[in-house]
Each structure stands twice: as structure tokens, then as C-alpha cells.
């Protein structure tokens, strides 16, 4: 552990290159726990198991799906000699996680909401099953879901959310509780923000830059994942072909006298070499998962930017609307028509309106202007608030990303080191056998 200046959540730098990826994962989780949100101070969260279920879906058809066991237990230290408290647990399926996340996205549009593990296996190299029910995929998803919960639980804002707490603790009534929040209404607005083709007049440079960054991040990580899958495929081929040496050496040793023993034992080492690639590539999946998380985080980042655009756009629209109303009022008051309006045209064509009519119209406009000013004030405040809270979370996110990516690169290096050490071992052994030929 690196010397800590006392700030919470300093990264535990790995001081030992023999650390396995499981240990690295643990370090990762410990980091998040150290973040020390109120929630995490209270409880430990695990996604402990996965199980297959069959049941009827909404269309009354039989389907097979997987459920995940969420365990929570009080985060107190266990007294000496005592057993840890039995955890509370409940089962959730992936779609419920999705619902939770949608709720969070809509309720906290200014937050970079942690992503879920992928819905379907992508960027696979050919040996890995792309089937959602494949046990390896399910296991990696289990880990990903736990990671998601810990991310949310360690977030300064999200961890305080009531619905999130219920998700962890209320199996039955949760769905109703979510729907009761009425977040569905906001879903439409969110969809609008994501898909709308509107132009902001004075874009905030920071958000424009951030959007470009999130695009770049998406592109580059997707590319990296594609390359990784192809490289994994090729490396698999290289190692496995060496298995043929094992077979041939074994057969060949049978017809040789002096060379036989050396060939035979070298053959065993070639078999070992060929077999070793399976574990190596399995570990590397972990690295791919870490990259994927940030690929999806890039999407979350992008949607915050888009939401900001919408907010600013609405602000600008409100201002524009107000300006035009004020203009109308001025014209009405002074009797000049500077701006074309239908009313103006019709009055020109069909004669001036009466004083009464004019005054009632003015009054209506006044009212409208007042409302408009209120609206503009609200919108501006909303925008400013959004910018403030969003930027705070973005800074937090940037630091998290820098730390996490660096950790991922370090653990990748550790994996490579482990792979090299295995290679040295096997080939040194083989060399000794060859020397005995």
C-alpha cells in the first residue's frame, strides 16, 4: 500500500507482481468501499450467486432467465470468534437492474450514471460463447452487476437515493415504488434530449469538448476491444498448435532409443504450454470487461452533455420567446409594426381594432410576459444548477476514470508478466528435456 496522505480513497497500488486478477478485483472493490459513502458505511453489498429460472413472461409464454442474488449485510466489524451476520438477500433479474438504471438516468440527468454490464456478449473472440445462458457469461455478468451496485453505492449523490436502497432491500414492493415516482413521464423528455436535432446558439465550450471527448473515448475503446478479440483468437491458435508437438514427440519417442526419453518429456511440456492459453485468455476477459465499462460510461457522459444541450436550448427558447413577446407588446403600445405579425396584417387590412380590444390584448401580453420572465428565470436557474451539479460529477468521474484506467493497465501488465513467466518456465523445462536427447 502506498503511503496515504489521509484522503479517503487513495488507490492501493499493487506492490506485488504476482497478484492474480482476482486479487486485483478485490483491490478495486476495496477502493470503492474506501470512498466511504454513508450507505457503504452501513452495509456490505454482494451479488453472490446466479440461478436459472423459468416462468411465464408478460405475454404468457414460458421463458428461461437468470436471477442474481443480492446480499446485504451490516458493515460492522465481526467480533473475534464471532460469525458474520447472515446477510439479507433477494433475487433480481437483469431487467430489474435496467429499470433501476433508467430511473436513475431520468432522476439525475446531471450525473454520469454507472453503466450496466452488457446485455449481450460483444467483442467476443471465437472460443467464447456469445450465449446469454453460457455459465462463463453469466459469471462475468454477476461480477459486472455487483460492480454496478458498488459504483452506485459509492456515489456521493446516487447512494442516497431511496429507490436504490429499496432495490437492495425490498424484493416485492420495489417495482411499484419505482413506478410511483412517476419517473416514466420524464423518460419521454429524456428520449427527446437524446434524439433531438436542435441547435444551441451559444454552446458551452466545456460541454462541447466533453462531447467530443466522449465520442473519441467510445471510438478508441471499441477499437481496442475489437483488436483484443482478434489478438486473443490468434494467440489461441499459436498456443494450441504447439499441442501437436506434444502428440508427435510422444509417438516419435516410441521409435527412438537414445532420443526417446528427452522427446517424450519435452512433449509433455508442449502439452502444458498449449493448455496454458485457456487460463491466460480467461484472465484477459477481465481486462476487456474493465474497458467495456468505460465504453458504456462514455455513453453516460454523452447523455449528460445532451441533457445539458436540451436544458440550455430550452433556456434560449424561453429567452427568445420572451423577447418576441416584449417586442409585440412594444409594437402594440406604440402602434408601430416592426415585426410582421398576423394580427398586425389583419388590422391593416381590416381596420384598426378598438381601444378596448387593444387594452385587453396588452393586458394578456403583460401576463404572458410576466409568465415568460418567470419561466426564463426558472430555466436559467435550472441551467445553472445543471451546469454546476453536472460539472461537479464530471470532475469526480474524470478522476475515477483516470484511476480506474491506470489500474486496468497495471493489471494488464501484471497478466502479461504472469504469461511470460509461464512461457519461460515451460520452455526452460522443454530445453532441459531436449538437452537430454
Amino acid at each position, binding site marked *: 500500500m502506498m503511503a496515504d496522505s489521509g484522503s479517503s480513497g487513495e488507490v492501493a497500488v499493487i506492490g506485488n507482481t504476482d497478484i492474480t486478477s482476482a486479487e486485483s478485483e478485490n483491490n478495486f472493490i476495496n477502493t470503492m468501499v474506501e470512498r466511504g459513502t454513508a450507505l457503504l458505511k452501513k452495509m456490505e453489498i454482494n451479488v453472490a450467486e446466479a440461478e436459472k429460472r423459468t416462468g411465464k413472461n408478460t405475454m404468457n409464454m414460458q421463458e428461461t432467465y437468470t436471477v442474481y442474488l443480492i446480499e446485504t449485510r451490516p458493515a460492522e466489524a465481526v467480533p473475534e470468534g464471532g460469525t458474520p451476520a447472515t446477510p439479507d438477500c433477494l433475487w433480481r433479474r437483469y431487467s430489474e437492474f435496467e429499470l433501476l438504471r433508467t430511473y436513475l438516468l431520468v432522476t439525475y440527468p446531471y450525473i454520469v450514471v454507472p453503466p450496466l454490464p452488457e446485455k449481450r456478449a460483444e467483442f467476443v473472440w471465437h472460443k467464447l460463447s456469445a450465449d446469454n445462458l453460457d455459465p462463463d457469461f453469466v459469471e462475468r455478468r454477476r461480477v459486472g452487476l455487483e460492480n454496478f451496485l458498488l459504483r452506485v453505492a459509492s456515489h456521493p449523490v446516487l447512494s442516497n437515493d431511496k429507490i436504490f436502497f429499496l432495490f437492495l432491500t425490498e424484493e416485492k414492493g420495489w417495482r411499484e415504488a419505482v413506478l410511483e415516482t412517476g419517473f416514466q413521464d420524464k423518460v419521454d423528455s429524456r428520449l427527446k434530449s437524446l434524439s433531438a436535432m436542435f441547435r444551441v446558439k451559444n454552446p458551452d465550450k466545456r460541454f462541447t469538448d466533453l462531447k467530443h471527448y466522449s465520442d473519441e473515448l467510445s471510438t478508441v475503446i471499441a477499437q481496442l476491444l475489437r483488436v483484443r478479440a482478434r*489478438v486473443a483468437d490468434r494467440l489461441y491458435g499459436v498456443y494450441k498448435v504447439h499441442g501437436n508437438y506434444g502428440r508427435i514427440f510422444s509417438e516419435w519417442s516410441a521409435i527412438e532409443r537414445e532420443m526417446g526419453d528427452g522427446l517424450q518429456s519435452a512433449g509433455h511440456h508442449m502439452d502444458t504450454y498449449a493448455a496454458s492459453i485457456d487460463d491466460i485468455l480467461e484472465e484477459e476477459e477481465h481486462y476487456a470487461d474493465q474497458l467495456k465499462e468505460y465504453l458504456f460510461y462514455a455513453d453516460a457522459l454523452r447523455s449528460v452533455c445532451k441533457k445539458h444541450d436540451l436544458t440550455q436550448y430550452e433556456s434560449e427558447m424561453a429567452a427568445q420567446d420572451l423577447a418576441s413577446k416584449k417586442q409585440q407588446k412594444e409594437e402594440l403600445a406604440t402602434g408601430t409594426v416592426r415585426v410582421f405579425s398576423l394580427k398586425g396584417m389583419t388590422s391593416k387590412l381590416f381596420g384598426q381594432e378598438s381601444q378596448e380590444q387593444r387594452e385587453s390584448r396588452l393586458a394578456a401580453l403583460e401576463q404572458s410576459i410576466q409568465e415568460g420572465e418567470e419561466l426564463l428565470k426558472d430555466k436559467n436557474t435550472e441551467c445553472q444548477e445543471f451546469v454546476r451539479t453536472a460539472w461537479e460529477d464530471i470532475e469526480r468521474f474524470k478522476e475515477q476514470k483516470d484511476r480506474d484506467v491506470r489500474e486496468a493497465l497495471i493489471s494488464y501488465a501484471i497478466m502479461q508478466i504472469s504469461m511470460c513467466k509461464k512461457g519461460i518456465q515451460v520452455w526452460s523445462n522443454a530445453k532441459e528435456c531436449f538437452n537430454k536427447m
Partner: protein
Amino acid sequence: MSSPTVPADFSGHMLDLDEDEDLEVFTKKTSMTDGSPMPNSPSSMVNQYGLDEEEEEQGTSTKDIFITVDNPESQVTAIETFIMYRVVTKTTRSEFDSSEYEVRRRYQDFVWLRGRLEESQPTLIVHPLPEKFVMKGMVERFNEDFIETRRKALHRFLNKISEHPILSSSEHFKVFLTAQELTPHRKQGPSFLSRMGETVRAVANSVRGLRSRPEEFVIMQEYVEDFSNKISSMDKVTQRIIKEQKEYLDELGQYSPTYTQWAGAEEELAEPLKGMAGCVELCNKETEELISHLADVLVPALHEYVLCAETLKTVMKRRDNIQADFESKSEALAAKKVDQEALKEEVDALADRVELANNALKGDWSRWQNSMRTDLKSAFVATAEKNVEYYEKCLAVWERFLLSQRTEPSEEQAGEDAS
């Protein structure tokens, strides 16, 4: 020159059946020292010459002849284009008038030499030549890689001959190494027709079948079959490994530009990402070197023994033919009533020939096996060493990266405190 004859007295000596009557040649096999001081001792020659590792391994304590094949040059005539190789010989052997020779030879010359060696010693195992053509991949005769591969194989061929206790005393070998013009010598030798005759007889004999092959040759035949299969498989697998490695290398090459691109979009992360890009690039280079090594060391060694296996099969057939010849004449003798005297002599001569052939093969067999074991062992050991080296170098690359990342966080910490 007369056709190959069988000297009457065999008595355990390995024979050179050509004109060389210098019996010292035979004793050179058993005692390597010559007694008289050399102007250039073999050891000093080693230092001057810069031997390949492979030659040093074979040479044991004394090597009195050093041959190199190098400097391929294209020759263009009106009829054809071909490559001439320079063959340099340095020797202390007394049957050579000079201690140094330099001649130019083409592939056909090597083919001639080998043919003569085989003729003179039909049941000795004469090292194979590189193939005339390359069937797959590069078919270009003048492709640089092809020429270099061929040159190395020709070099090995001559050195193998020079190490053979009997073949290295061959007059043809000497002529090949020393004569400025080989063509006049090439015109001599058994006519095409007589060689045809042999082939026809051989076919006839194989159709007739052998009465019984001596046990040891049955075993040898089985071994040759199995060995041939195994070595061919080894060759194929190794080619496949190279292919897979090359494809791996291609994909690996995509990592570096991607990491670099990412580094361009980051601030804090730019340094570690660039570090990653650097690491994968270095690993790339190491992979390239590993592939080169496989292609330069293991593949030629295996391929050479694939060709050897074919040579062994040929030698075994020849031995069978010699035995079949004897058996058929023997039967004729038993059947015929007239001309018994003449036939008896012929049969006796053939009986001797069989014994000679069998002993020659038996003797050469253990020499060949030893040679094969040594050659392949050295190639396998070298391959294993190269793989170890490959992983060690890659290990160093990643450990350096790891080290660089461990010292970085102190900067991060300062940044953290400031925020």
C-alpha cells in the same frame, strides 16, 4: 573410369571405391592426428574462419577441412540464367595439393557430385541436396530468400560430406572442391544407358519381390517409415506455427496505434497509455525475431531431415535390389545345368556385393542416427532457448512499464490533495 568394382578384400574397412589408393585415408577415420605439424592447425583455422555453431558441434576435436558456400551470383548466358555459388575450401589434408581452393559451382554441379557419390557408394547414406523446386509459396528461382535457403543447404551438404568418414575421401569430392572447371570431369562416368539398365533391373526386382530381408533391415525399414512420418509432421506443424505467429503479429500491430490515439484524447492518462503503446510495439519486435529464428533455424533443420528420410528410403531400396540381384542369379544357378563355372563366379561376386552393401549400410546407419540426433537436438534446443529469450524480453518490457506506473501515483496524489 571403370564402373564401380568391389575390391576382394573387405575385412571391416569402409572403402572408397574410386581411384584413391592412399590407405591413409582409411586410418584417418580412426585416428584423427596426423603426427606432422600443420602450417595451419585446425584450431587456428577455427579462429580465422569464424565457423557456424553447427560445424563446431560436429567437428569434435579435430576438423581438417573447412568448406564454405557463399556469394551467390547470377550468370546469364544465351540459353539460360542460373546462379553460381562460391565454394571455398581450406584444408590440411595431404591428398590436397594446396591448402586453399576457391571455385565457382552451380546447383547442377552439386547434383552431379551427389550422383557420383551415390553411385560409388549405393548403400551409404549421402546427405540430401536442397530441392530443385519449391512447391508452394515462392516459386521464384531467383527470389532472395530462396537463394539464401538454398545456399545454406548447399553449405551444409558439403560439410556433411566432408564429415563422412568414407565419402569425404571420394575423388569426385576432391575434384568438385578443387577443379576450376568442372565440366570436363562431368563428362566422364557411367553412361546414361548403363544407368537406365540399373533402373530397369531395379524395377524388375521390386516387382519380383525379395525372398527375405534380414531382420535388422526389416527393423530399419520400419523405423525409416515411422521416422519419415514423424519428421514430415514436425515440418508441417512448424510451418503452421509460423503461419499462426505471423497472423498474431499482424493483429498485435493494431494495438499500438489505438493506444496512441487514446493517449491523444487524455491528459493524466496520456503517459500510461503511451507507455502501453510502447510496450506492445517492443513485444511486436520480439515476436518478429522469434518468427525469423524459427524460419532460419528450426524449419531448415526439419526440412533437411524430411529429405534425409527420402534418402533413407532410396538407400534401403537399393540394398534390397542388390540382394534381389543376387537371389535371382542364385536361383538361375540352381536351375541351370550348363555354364555353371561362369555363373558360379558371378553369383559369388554378387554375394560379396550383398555383404558389402549390407555392412556399408549398417555402419553408416549408426553414424547417421547419431548425426540426426545431434542435429535435431541442437535445433530443438536452440528453438527452446529462443522462446525463453522471447518471453524474458517481453517480461522485462512489462516489468519496466509496471515500475514506471508505480512511481507515477505520487503526482496523482498531489493532484488529489489540490482538488
